[in-house]
Protein backbone atom coordinates (compact mmCIF):
# COMPACT_ATOMS: atom_id res chain seq x y z
CA UNK A 1 0.00 0.00 0.00
CA UNK A 2 1.36 3.41 -0.92
CA UNK A 3 1.50 6.32 1.49
CA UNK A 4 -1.24 8.06 -0.50
CA UNK A 5 -3.57 5.07 -0.18
CA UNK A 6 -2.81 4.82 3.55
CA UNK A 7 -3.66 8.49 4.01
CA UNK A 8 -6.84 8.09 1.99
CA UNK A 9 -7.99 5.19 4.16
CA UNK A 10 -7.13 7.27 7.22
CA UNK A 11 -9.33 10.11 5.92
CA UNK A 12 -12.19 7.75 5.11
CA UNK A 13 -11.92 6.16 8.55
CA UNK A 14 -11.89 9.63 10.12
CA UNK A 15 -15.05 10.68 8.29
CA UNK A 16 -16.63 7.35 9.17
CA UNK A 17 -15.85 8.07 12.81
CA UNK A 18 -17.47 11.51 12.64
CA UNK A 19 -20.55 9.99 11.00
CA UNK A 20 -20.79 7.25 13.65
CA UNK A 21 -20.72 9.99 16.27
CA UNK A 22 -23.35 12.01 14.38
CA UNK A 23 -25.58 8.95 13.98
CA UNK A 24 -25.27 8.19 17.70
CA UNK A 25 -26.23 11.76 18.62
CA UNK A 26 -29.11 11.71 16.13
CA UNK A 27 -30.33 8.41 17.57
CA UNK A 28 -30.18 9.72 21.14
CA UNK A 29 -31.99 12.95 20.18
CA UNK A 30 -34.68 10.98 18.37
CA UNK A 31 -35.12 8.64 21.35
CA UNK A 32 -35.33 11.50 23.81
CA UNK A 33 -37.34 14.14 21.92
CA UNK A 34 -38.94 12.44 18.93
CA UNK A 35 -39.78 8.79 19.71
CA UNK A 36 -42.81 8.84 17.39
CA UNK A 37 -41.08 10.97 14.78
CA UNK A 38 -43.04 14.09 15.84
CA UNK A 39 -40.10 16.52 15.89
CA UNK A 40 -39.55 17.64 12.30
CA UNK A 41 -36.10 19.16 12.96
CA UNK A 42 -34.75 15.95 14.49
CA UNK A 43 -36.27 13.76 11.77
CA UNK A 44 -34.69 16.02 9.14
CA UNK A 45 -31.35 15.82 10.95
CA UNK A 46 -31.50 12.04 10.89
CA UNK A 47 -32.54 12.01 7.23
CA UNK A 48 -29.55 14.20 6.51
CA UNK A 49 -27.17 11.97 8.46
CA UNK A 50 -28.43 8.88 6.61
CA UNK A 51 -27.95 10.69 3.28
CA UNK A 52 -24.46 11.71 4.39
CA UNK A 53 -23.62 8.04 4.93
CA UNK A 54 -24.62 7.28 1.35
CA UNK A 55 -22.70 10.26 -0.02
CA UNK A 56 -19.55 9.36 1.91
CA UNK A 57 -19.91 5.74 0.80
CA UNK A 58 -20.19 6.83 -2.85
CA UNK A 59 -17.20 9.17 -2.50
CA UNK A 60 -15.09 6.52 -0.74
CA UNK A 61 -15.88 3.92 -3.43
CA UNK A 62 -15.05 6.43 -6.16
CA UNK A 63 -11.77 7.40 -4.50
CA UNK A 64 -10.75 3.79 -4.07
CA UNK A 65 -11.74 3.22 -7.71
CA UNK A 66 -9.10 5.76 -8.74
CA UNK A 67 -9.31 8.05 -11.75
CA UNK A 68 -12.16 6.19 -13.45
CA UNK A 69 -14.17 6.05 -10.24
CA UNK A 70 -13.81 9.77 -9.49
CA UNK A 71 -14.61 10.89 -13.04
CA UNK A 72 -17.61 8.56 -13.27
CA UNK A 73 -18.99 9.70 -9.92
CA UNK A 74 -18.77 13.39 -10.78
CA UNK A 75 -20.15 12.77 -14.28
CA UNK A 76 -23.21 11.16 -12.69
CA UNK A 77 -23.54 14.02 -10.19
CA UNK A 78 -23.25 16.43 -13.10
CA UNK A 79 -26.02 14.62 -14.98
CA UNK A 80 -28.31 14.70 -11.93
CA UNK A 81 -27.56 18.40 -11.38
CA UNK A 82 -28.11 19.29 -15.04
CA UNK A 83 -31.46 17.50 -14.96
CA UNK A 84 -32.52 19.51 -11.92
CA UNK A 85 -31.35 22.80 -13.44
CA UNK A 86 -32.89 22.24 -16.88
CA UNK A 87 -36.19 21.27 -15.25
CA UNK A 88 -36.44 24.77 -13.77
CA UNK A 89 -35.53 26.64 -16.98
CA UNK A 90 -37.82 27.89 -19.72
CA UNK A 91 -36.40 25.43 -22.22
CA UNK A 92 -39.43 23.96 -23.90
CA UNK A 93 -40.48 21.77 -26.75
CA UNK A 94 -38.65 23.91 -29.30
CA UNK A 95 -35.39 23.35 -27.43
CA UNK A 96 -35.68 19.59 -27.37
CA UNK A 97 -32.79 19.05 -29.76
CA UNK A 98 -30.60 21.52 -27.90
CA UNK A 99 -31.42 19.83 -24.61
CA UNK A 100 -30.66 16.41 -26.04
CA UNK A 101 -27.30 17.74 -27.27
CA UNK A 102 -26.55 19.21 -23.84
CA UNK A 103 -27.29 15.96 -22.04
CA UNK A 104 -25.99 13.42 -24.51
CA UNK A 105 -23.11 15.22 -26.26
CA UNK A 106 -21.80 18.18 -24.24
CA UNK A 107 -21.79 16.45 -20.86
CA UNK A 108 -20.11 13.19 -21.98
CA UNK A 109 -17.58 15.06 -24.13
CA UNK A 110 -16.59 17.38 -21.28
CA UNK A 111 -15.93 14.46 -18.92
CA UNK A 112 -14.20 12.51 -21.66
CA UNK A 113 -11.86 15.48 -22.19
CA UNK A 114 -11.15 15.46 -18.46
CA UNK A 115 -10.56 11.70 -18.65
CA UNK A 116 -7.95 12.05 -21.40
CA UNK A 117 -6.53 15.11 -19.65
CA UNK A 118 -6.85 17.54 -22.57
CA UNK A 119 -6.64 20.70 -20.48
CA UNK A 120 -6.41 23.00 -23.49
CA UNK A 121 -9.85 21.87 -24.66
CA UNK A 122 -11.83 21.06 -21.52
CA UNK A 123 -11.04 24.53 -20.14
CA UNK A 124 -12.70 26.19 -23.15
CA UNK A 125 -15.03 23.55 -24.55
CA UNK A 126 -18.19 24.84 -22.83
CA UNK A 127 -17.42 28.57 -22.45
CA UNK A 128 -16.23 28.96 -26.06
CA UNK A 129 -17.36 26.12 -28.31
CA UNK A 130 -20.68 25.25 -26.75
CA UNK A 131 -21.60 28.87 -26.01
CA UNK A 132 -21.33 29.66 -29.70
CA UNK A 133 -22.63 26.44 -31.22
CA UNK A 134 -25.57 25.82 -28.89
CA UNK A 135 -27.55 28.95 -29.84
CA UNK A 136 -27.21 27.93 -33.48
CA UNK A 137 -28.95 24.66 -32.70
CA UNK A 138 -31.78 26.52 -30.98
CA UNK A 139 -32.13 28.96 -33.89
CA UNK A 140 -32.91 26.02 -36.17
CA UNK A 141 -36.09 25.29 -34.24
CA UNK A 142 -37.55 28.56 -35.50
CA UNK A 143 -39.11 29.50 -32.15
CA UNK A 144 -38.36 33.17 -31.46
CA UNK A 145 -40.24 33.67 -28.23
CA UNK A 146 -37.90 34.12 -25.23
CA UNK A 147 -34.94 33.12 -27.37
CA UNK A 148 -32.31 34.96 -25.35
CA UNK A 149 -33.77 33.79 -22.04
CA UNK A 150 -33.90 30.18 -23.16
CA UNK A 151 -30.39 30.14 -24.59
CA UNK A 152 -28.87 32.01 -21.64
CA UNK A 153 -30.49 29.64 -19.18
CA UNK A 154 -29.27 26.55 -20.98
CA UNK A 155 -25.74 27.94 -21.21
CA UNK A 156 -25.69 28.89 -17.54
CA UNK A 157 -26.99 25.42 -16.65
CA UNK A 158 -24.15 23.82 -18.60
CA UNK A 159 -21.62 26.18 -17.04
CA UNK A 160 -22.74 25.43 -13.47
CA UNK A 161 -23.67 21.79 -13.71
CA UNK A 162 -21.15 20.45 -16.21
CA UNK A 163 -18.20 22.82 -16.58
CA UNK A 164 -17.85 23.63 -12.88
CA UNK A 165 -18.55 20.12 -11.62
CA UNK A 166 -16.02 18.65 -14.07
CA UNK A 167 -13.31 20.76 -12.44
CA UNK A 168 -13.43 18.56 -9.36
CA UNK A 169 -12.12 15.45 -11.16
CA UNK A 170 -9.91 17.73 -13.29
CA UNK A 171 -7.83 18.22 -10.13
CA UNK A 172 -6.48 14.72 -10.85
CA UNK A 173 -4.75 16.27 -13.84
CA UNK A 174 -2.49 18.64 -11.93
CA UNK A 175 1.15 17.68 -11.76
CA UNK A 176 2.54 18.88 -8.49
CA UNK A 177 6.17 18.00 -7.69
CA UNK A 178 6.44 15.86 -4.57
CA UNK A 179 2.68 15.26 -4.59
CA UNK A 180 2.50 12.46 -7.16
CA UNK A 181 -0.43 10.06 -6.75
CA UNK A 182 -1.94 12.22 -4.02
CA UNK A 183 -4.36 14.29 -6.11
CA UNK A 184 -7.32 12.21 -4.93
CA UNK A 185 -6.51 13.47 -1.44
CA UNK A 186 -6.63 17.02 -2.75
CA UNK A 187 -10.18 16.38 -4.03
CA UNK A 188 -11.12 14.83 -0.71
CA UNK A 189 -9.73 17.92 1.07
CA UNK A 190 -11.71 20.32 -1.13
CA UNK A 191 -14.98 18.42 -0.76
CA UNK A 192 -14.52 18.00 3.00
CA UNK A 193 -13.64 21.62 3.71
CA UNK A 194 -16.47 23.03 1.59
CA UNK A 195 -19.08 20.63 2.96
CA UNK A 196 -17.90 21.12 6.55
CA UNK A 197 -18.15 24.84 6.00
CA UNK A 198 -21.81 24.37 4.99
CA UNK A 199 -22.55 22.28 8.05
CA UNK A 200 -20.66 24.58 10.42
CA UNK A 201 -22.34 27.67 8.97
CA UNK A 202 -25.65 26.02 9.76
CA UNK A 203 -24.54 25.16 13.30
CA UNK A 204 -23.05 28.60 14.00
CA UNK A 205 -26.11 30.25 12.50
CA UNK A 206 -28.39 28.26 14.83
CA UNK A 207 -26.25 29.01 17.88
CA UNK A 208 -25.24 32.63 17.33
CA UNK A 209 -27.01 33.90 14.20
CA UNK A 210 -28.39 37.43 14.62
CA UNK A 211 -27.81 39.40 11.42
CA UNK A 212 -29.06 37.92 8.16
CA UNK A 213 -26.76 38.44 5.17
CA UNK A 214 -29.60 38.65 2.67
CA UNK A 215 -32.86 38.79 4.64
CA UNK A 216 -35.12 38.66 1.62
CA UNK A 217 -33.24 35.71 0.19
CA UNK A 218 -32.61 33.42 3.12
CA UNK A 219 -33.26 34.22 6.79
CA UNK A 220 -31.07 31.29 7.85
CA UNK A 221 -27.87 32.65 6.29
CA UNK A 222 -26.40 35.02 8.87
CA UNK A 223 -23.19 37.01 9.23
CA UNK A 224 -22.40 35.10 12.40
CA UNK A 225 -23.03 31.78 10.68
CA UNK A 226 -20.87 32.77 7.73
CA UNK A 227 -17.95 33.98 9.85
CA UNK A 228 -18.12 31.16 12.39
CA UNK A 229 -18.59 28.47 9.75
CA UNK A 230 -15.93 29.77 7.39
CA UNK A 231 -13.35 30.36 10.10
CA UNK A 232 -13.87 27.02 11.81
CA UNK A 233 -13.86 25.16 8.48
CA UNK A 234 -10.67 27.02 7.56
CA UNK A 235 -9.11 25.89 10.83
CA UNK A 236 -9.99 22.29 10.04
CA UNK A 237 -8.67 22.79 6.50
CA UNK A 238 -5.42 24.05 7.98
CA UNK A 239 -5.18 21.08 10.32
CA UNK A 240 -5.62 18.78 7.29
CA UNK A 241 -2.80 20.47 5.35
CA UNK A 242 -0.97 17.11 5.15
CA UNK A 243 -3.56 15.96 2.58
CA UNK A 244 -2.51 18.79 0.25
CA UNK A 245 0.65 20.09 -1.38
CA UNK A 246 0.20 23.31 0.63
CA UNK A 247 2.04 24.50 3.72
CA UNK A 248 -0.25 24.92 6.73
CA UNK A 249 -0.67 28.70 6.23
CA UNK A 250 -1.32 28.19 2.54
CA UNK A 251 -3.88 25.51 3.33
CA UNK A 252 -5.56 27.99 5.69
CA UNK A 253 -5.78 30.66 2.98
CA UNK A 254 -7.01 28.16 0.39
CA UNK A 255 -9.65 26.94 2.83
CA UNK A 256 -10.80 30.54 3.42
CA UNK A 257 -11.00 31.05 -0.34
CA UNK A 258 -13.06 27.93 -1.06
CA UNK A 259 -15.35 28.48 1.93
CA UNK A 260 -16.08 32.06 0.87
CA UNK A 261 -16.77 30.90 -2.69
CA UNK A 262 -18.92 28.07 -1.40
CA UNK A 263 -20.94 30.50 0.68
CA UNK A 264 -21.41 32.79 -2.31
CA UNK A 265 -22.37 29.80 -4.46
CA UNK A 266 -25.04 28.85 -1.95
CA UNK A 267 -26.43 32.39 -2.09
CA UNK A 268 -26.48 32.51 -5.89
CA UNK A 269 -28.19 29.16 -6.18
CA UNK A 270 -30.73 30.19 -3.51
CA UNK A 271 -31.51 33.30 -5.52
CA UNK A 272 -32.28 31.14 -8.55
CA UNK A 273 -34.56 28.93 -6.47
CA UNK A 274 -36.26 32.01 -5.03
CA UNK A 275 -36.72 33.39 -8.54
CA UNK A 276 -38.36 30.14 -9.67
CA UNK A 277 -40.46 29.80 -6.54
CA UNK A 278 -39.12 26.47 -5.35
CA UNK A 279 -37.65 25.44 -2.03
CA UNK A 280 -35.29 22.75 -3.25
CA UNK A 281 -33.73 21.89 -6.58
CA UNK A 282 -35.03 18.36 -6.48
CA UNK A 283 -36.17 15.56 -4.26
CA UNK A 284 -33.50 12.93 -4.83
CA UNK A 285 -31.65 13.15 -1.52
CA UNK A 286 -33.79 12.75 1.60
CA UNK A 287 -33.33 15.71 3.96
CA UNK A 288 -31.15 17.64 1.52
CA UNK A 289 -33.44 18.23 -1.47
CA UNK A 290 -31.72 17.71 -4.78
CA UNK A 291 -28.16 17.20 -5.97
CA UNK A 292 -27.59 20.91 -6.60
CA UNK A 293 -28.65 21.69 -3.02
CA UNK A 294 -25.64 19.68 -1.93
CA UNK A 295 -23.28 20.59 -4.78
CA UNK A 296 -23.91 24.35 -4.97
CA UNK A 297 -20.95 25.36 -2.82
CA UNK A 298 -18.55 22.84 -4.37
CA UNK A 299 -19.61 24.03 -7.81
CA UNK A 300 -18.48 27.59 -7.20
CA UNK A 301 -15.32 26.63 -5.36
CA UNK A 302 -14.00 23.95 -7.72
CA UNK A 303 -12.94 25.85 -10.86
CA UNK A 304 -11.27 28.68 -8.94
CA UNK A 305 -9.56 26.28 -6.56
CA UNK A 306 -8.40 24.34 -9.62
CA UNK A 307 -6.95 27.40 -11.33
CA UNK A 308 -5.29 28.87 -8.23
CA UNK A 309 -3.68 25.52 -7.48
CA UNK A 310 -2.69 25.09 -11.09
CA UNK A 311 -1.18 28.56 -11.33
CA UNK A 312 0.97 28.29 -8.21
CA UNK A 313 1.75 24.58 -7.84
CA UNK A 314 1.39 22.81 -11.18
CA UNK A 315 4.66 22.07 -12.98
CA UNK A 316 5.22 20.00 -16.06
CA UNK A 317 8.29 17.85 -15.39
CA UNK A 318 11.21 18.89 -17.57
Amino acid at each position, binding site marked *: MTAAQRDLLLVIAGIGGVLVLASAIGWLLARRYSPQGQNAAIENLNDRIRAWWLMVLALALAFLGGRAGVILLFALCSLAALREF*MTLTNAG*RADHRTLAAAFFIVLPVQFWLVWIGWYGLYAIFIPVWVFLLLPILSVLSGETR*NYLVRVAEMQWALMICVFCVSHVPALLDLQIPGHGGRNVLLIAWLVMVVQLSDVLQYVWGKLAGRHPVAPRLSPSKTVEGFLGGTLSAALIGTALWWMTPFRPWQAGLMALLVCALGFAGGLVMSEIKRDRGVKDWGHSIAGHGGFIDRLDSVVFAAPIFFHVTRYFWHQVPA
Partner: protein
Amino acid sequence: MAAIRAILARIAARILTFVARAITAVQPLWVGIDPDAPRQRVYFANHASHGDFILIWSVLPPRLQRLTRPVAGADYWQRGALRRFIGCEVFGALLIRRQAEGAGPLPPDGRDDPEAPIPRMAAALDEGSSLILFPEGTRNQGDAPLLPFRSGLYHLARARPQVDLVPVWIENLNRVLPKGAVVPVPLMCKVVFGAPLHLAAGEDKAAFLARARAALLALRPRQDAQVAP
Protein backbone atom coordinates in the same frame (compact mmCIF):
# COMPACT_ATOMS: atom_id res chain seq x y z
CA MET B 1 -46.41 -20.10 -24.89
CA ALA B 2 -49.02 -17.91 -23.26
CA ALA B 3 -47.24 -18.33 -19.92
CA ILE B 4 -43.94 -17.24 -21.45
CA ARG B 5 -45.59 -14.19 -23.00
CA ALA B 6 -47.11 -13.32 -19.64
CA ILE B 7 -43.71 -13.53 -17.94
CA LEU B 8 -42.15 -11.47 -20.72
CA ALA B 9 -44.91 -8.90 -20.28
CA ARG B 10 -44.18 -8.70 -16.52
CA ILE B 11 -40.46 -8.21 -17.19
CA ALA B 12 -41.15 -5.61 -19.87
CA ALA B 13 -43.40 -3.71 -17.46
CA ARG B 14 -40.61 -3.65 -14.88
CA ILE B 15 -38.06 -2.45 -17.43
CA LEU B 16 -40.32 0.26 -18.88
CA THR B 17 -41.28 1.64 -15.47
CA PHE B 18 -37.64 1.52 -14.35
CA VAL B 19 -36.54 3.45 -17.45
CA ALA B 20 -39.36 5.98 -17.01
CA ARG B 21 -38.37 6.54 -13.38
CA ALA B 22 -34.64 6.72 -14.17
CA ILE B 23 -35.14 9.37 -16.84
CA THR B 24 -37.67 11.54 -15.06
CA ALA B 25 -36.99 10.88 -11.34
CA VAL B 26 -40.78 11.07 -11.19
CA GLN B 27 -42.19 12.19 -7.88
CA PRO B 28 -45.78 11.31 -7.01
CA LEU B 29 -47.66 13.89 -4.95
CA TRP B 30 -50.71 12.42 -3.25
CA VAL B 31 -52.62 15.63 -2.63
CA GLY B 32 -56.19 14.40 -2.56
CA ILE B 33 -56.07 10.63 -2.12
CA ASP B 34 -54.36 7.95 -0.11
CA PRO B 35 -52.73 5.77 -2.77
CA ASP B 36 -53.22 2.59 -0.77
CA ALA B 37 -56.92 3.04 0.01
CA PRO B 38 -58.80 0.09 -1.50
CA ARG B 39 -60.95 2.21 -3.81
CA GLN B 40 -61.85 1.67 -7.41
CA ARG B 41 -60.80 4.69 -9.43
CA VAL B 42 -60.85 6.34 -12.79
CA TYR B 43 -57.67 8.40 -12.97
CA PHE B 44 -58.13 11.18 -15.53
CA ALA B 45 -55.04 13.06 -16.68
CA ASN B 46 -53.67 15.61 -19.10
CA HIS B 47 -52.23 14.01 -22.21
CA ALA B 48 -49.12 15.36 -23.89
CA SER B 49 -46.89 12.39 -24.49
CA HIS B 50 -47.06 8.70 -25.30
CA GLY B 51 -45.34 8.09 -21.98
CA ASP B 52 -48.19 9.58 -19.95
CA PHE B 53 -49.87 6.42 -18.77
CA ILE B 54 -46.52 4.68 -18.15
CA LEU B 55 -45.58 7.50 -15.78
CA ILE B 56 -48.87 7.26 -13.86
CA TRP B 57 -48.62 3.49 -13.80
CA SER B 58 -45.04 3.59 -12.52
CA VAL B 59 -45.90 5.60 -9.40
CA LEU B 60 -48.93 3.52 -8.39
CA PRO B 61 -48.34 1.02 -5.58
CA PRO B 62 -47.36 -2.29 -7.26
CA ARG B 63 -50.44 -4.00 -5.85
CA LEU B 64 -52.65 -1.52 -7.70
CA GLN B 65 -50.68 -1.61 -10.96
CA ARG B 66 -52.09 -5.03 -11.92
CA LEU B 67 -55.61 -3.70 -11.42
CA THR B 68 -55.17 -0.44 -13.31
CA ARG B 69 -55.72 -0.36 -17.07
CA PRO B 70 -55.05 2.62 -19.35
CA VAL B 71 -57.70 3.46 -21.90
CA ALA B 72 -55.93 4.11 -25.19
CA GLY B 73 -56.64 4.66 -28.85
CA ALA B 74 -56.77 1.43 -30.83
CA ASP B 75 -55.53 3.11 -34.00
CA TYR B 76 -52.17 3.86 -32.36
CA TRP B 77 -51.64 0.80 -30.19
CA GLN B 78 -52.70 -1.80 -32.72
CA ARG B 79 -50.20 -0.68 -35.30
CA GLY B 80 -47.39 -3.23 -35.19
CA ALA B 81 -46.64 -6.26 -33.03
CA LEU B 82 -44.43 -4.43 -30.52
CA ARG B 83 -47.00 -1.72 -29.78
CA ARG B 84 -49.71 -4.35 -29.47
CA PHE B 85 -47.55 -6.31 -27.02
CA ILE B 86 -46.71 -3.23 -24.93
CA GLY B 87 -50.22 -1.82 -25.01
CA CYS B 88 -52.33 -4.91 -24.48
CA GLU B 89 -50.14 -7.41 -22.69
CA VAL B 90 -47.69 -5.31 -20.70
CA PHE B 91 -50.12 -2.66 -19.49
CA GLY B 92 -53.44 -4.39 -20.19
CA ALA B 93 -54.67 -1.35 -22.08
CA LEU B 94 -58.33 -1.12 -22.92
CA LEU B 95 -58.15 -0.20 -26.60
CA ILE B 96 -61.01 1.85 -27.93
CA ARG B 97 -61.88 3.08 -31.37
CA ARG B 98 -61.41 6.81 -31.73
CA GLN B 99 -63.20 9.12 -34.09
CA ALA B 100 -60.98 10.70 -36.67
CA GLU B 101 -59.67 14.15 -35.73
CA GLY B 102 -62.32 16.82 -36.04
CA ALA B 103 -65.13 14.38 -36.72
CA GLY B 104 -67.07 15.51 -33.67
CA PRO B 105 -67.66 13.84 -30.35
CA LEU B 106 -67.98 10.11 -29.81
CA PRO B 107 -71.48 8.69 -29.94
CA PRO B 108 -72.80 9.32 -26.44
CA ASP B 109 -73.94 5.87 -25.48
CA GLY B 110 -73.89 3.38 -28.27
CA ARG B 111 -76.15 0.76 -26.74
CA ASP B 112 -76.33 -0.98 -30.09
CA ASP B 113 -72.59 -1.05 -30.71
CA PRO B 114 -70.60 -3.74 -28.85
CA GLU B 115 -67.43 -1.81 -29.63
CA ALA B 116 -68.69 1.46 -28.10
CA PRO B 117 -66.22 2.89 -25.59
CA ILE B 118 -68.41 3.70 -22.61
CA PRO B 119 -69.99 0.24 -22.14
CA ARG B 120 -66.56 -1.35 -22.48
CA MET B 121 -65.06 0.94 -19.84
CA ALA B 122 -68.02 0.27 -17.57
CA ALA B 123 -67.56 -3.46 -18.09
CA ALA B 124 -63.87 -3.17 -17.17
CA LEU B 125 -64.86 -1.32 -14.00
CA ASP B 126 -67.40 -4.05 -13.23
CA GLU B 127 -64.60 -6.60 -13.47
CA GLY B 128 -62.79 -4.74 -10.67
CA SER B 129 -60.26 -2.80 -12.74
CA SER B 130 -59.37 0.83 -12.27
CA LEU B 131 -58.86 2.93 -15.41
CA ILE B 132 -56.50 5.64 -16.62
CA LEU B 133 -58.30 8.02 -18.95
CA PHE B 134 -57.22 11.00 -21.03
CA PRO B 135 -60.37 13.11 -21.42
CA GLU B 136 -58.75 15.54 -23.84
CA GLY B 137 -59.18 12.68 -26.28
CA THR B 138 -55.89 13.29 -28.03
CA ARG B 139 -52.38 14.36 -27.21
CA ASN B 140 -52.05 18.05 -26.50
CA GLN B 141 -49.42 19.43 -28.86
CA GLY B 142 -50.18 23.11 -28.58
CA ASP B 143 -49.48 25.85 -26.08
CA ALA B 144 -52.72 25.60 -24.09
CA PRO B 145 -52.15 23.80 -20.80
CA LEU B 146 -55.22 21.63 -21.27
CA LEU B 147 -57.61 21.06 -24.19
CA PRO B 148 -61.39 21.00 -23.71
CA PHE B 149 -62.63 17.64 -22.46
CA ARG B 150 -64.49 15.20 -24.65
CA SER B 151 -67.68 13.86 -23.17
CA GLY B 152 -66.46 10.33 -22.30
CA LEU B 153 -65.68 11.15 -18.68
CA TYR B 154 -69.22 12.46 -18.16
CA HIS B 155 -70.87 9.41 -19.67
CA LEU B 156 -68.67 7.12 -17.60
CA ALA B 157 -69.47 9.09 -14.44
CA ARG B 158 -73.15 8.66 -15.21
CA ALA B 159 -72.82 4.97 -16.00
CA ARG B 160 -70.87 4.15 -12.78
CA PRO B 161 -71.56 7.01 -10.33
CA GLN B 162 -70.01 5.26 -7.33
CA VAL B 163 -66.47 5.12 -8.81
CA ASP B 164 -63.96 7.77 -7.65
CA LEU B 165 -62.86 10.06 -10.49
CA VAL B 166 -59.35 11.19 -9.56
CA PRO B 167 -57.72 14.11 -11.44
CA VAL B 168 -54.03 13.47 -12.16
CA TRP B 169 -51.75 16.25 -13.41
CA ILE B 170 -48.62 15.09 -15.22
CA GLU B 171 -46.01 17.85 -15.02
CA ASN B 172 -43.20 18.21 -17.53
CA LEU B 173 -43.48 15.02 -19.54
CA ASN B 174 -44.39 17.09 -22.60
CA ARG B 175 -40.87 18.53 -22.37
CA VAL B 176 -39.22 15.15 -21.85
CA LEU B 177 -40.67 13.63 -25.00
CA PRO B 178 -42.50 16.17 -27.17
CA LYS B 179 -44.25 15.33 -30.37
CA GLY B 180 -41.99 13.97 -33.05
CA ALA B 181 -39.05 13.49 -30.69
CA VAL B 182 -37.47 10.07 -30.50
CA VAL B 183 -34.91 10.66 -27.74
CA PRO B 184 -36.31 11.58 -24.33
CA VAL B 185 -34.33 14.23 -22.46
CA PRO B 186 -33.96 13.69 -18.73
CA LEU B 187 -36.05 16.36 -17.03
CA MET B 188 -37.76 15.78 -13.73
CA CYS B 189 -41.48 15.06 -13.69
CA LYS B 190 -44.19 15.16 -11.10
CA VAL B 191 -47.47 13.28 -11.01
CA VAL B 192 -50.02 15.06 -8.82
CA PHE B 193 -53.09 13.15 -7.64
CA GLY B 194 -56.04 15.35 -6.61
CA ALA B 195 -59.19 14.75 -4.59
CA PRO B 196 -61.80 12.42 -6.14
CA LEU B 197 -64.83 13.83 -7.98
CA HIS B 198 -68.33 12.45 -8.48
CA LEU B 199 -71.22 13.50 -10.66
CA ALA B 200 -73.47 15.76 -8.60
CA ALA B 201 -77.23 15.35 -8.57
CA GLY B 202 -78.75 17.13 -11.53
CA GLU B 203 -75.37 18.28 -12.86
CA ASP B 204 -75.38 18.54 -16.63
CA LYS B 205 -72.66 17.51 -19.01
CA ALA B 206 -71.10 20.93 -19.61
CA ALA B 207 -71.04 21.84 -15.91
CA PHE B 208 -69.53 18.52 -14.91
CA LEU B 209 -66.84 18.59 -17.59
CA ALA B 210 -65.96 22.18 -16.70
CA ARG B 211 -65.67 21.22 -13.01
CA ALA B 212 -63.51 18.18 -13.79
CA ARG B 213 -61.28 20.22 -16.07
CA ALA B 214 -60.88 22.96 -13.46
CA ALA B 215 -60.01 20.37 -10.82
CA LEU B 216 -57.28 19.00 -13.07
CA LEU B 217 -55.89 22.45 -13.94
CA ALA B 218 -55.81 23.39 -10.25
CA LEU B 219 -53.20 20.66 -9.65
CA ARG B 220 -50.53 22.30 -11.82
CA PRO B 221 -47.45 22.81 -9.62
CA ARG B 222 -46.03 25.86 -11.40
CA GLN B 223 -48.68 27.95 -13.05
CA ASP B 224 -46.69 31.06 -13.89
CA ALA B 225 -43.03 30.12 -14.19
CA GLN B 226 -43.47 28.51 -17.58
CA VAL B 227 -43.26 31.28 -20.12
CA ALA B 228 -41.84 29.60 -23.19
CA PRO B 229 -43.77 27.02 -25.19
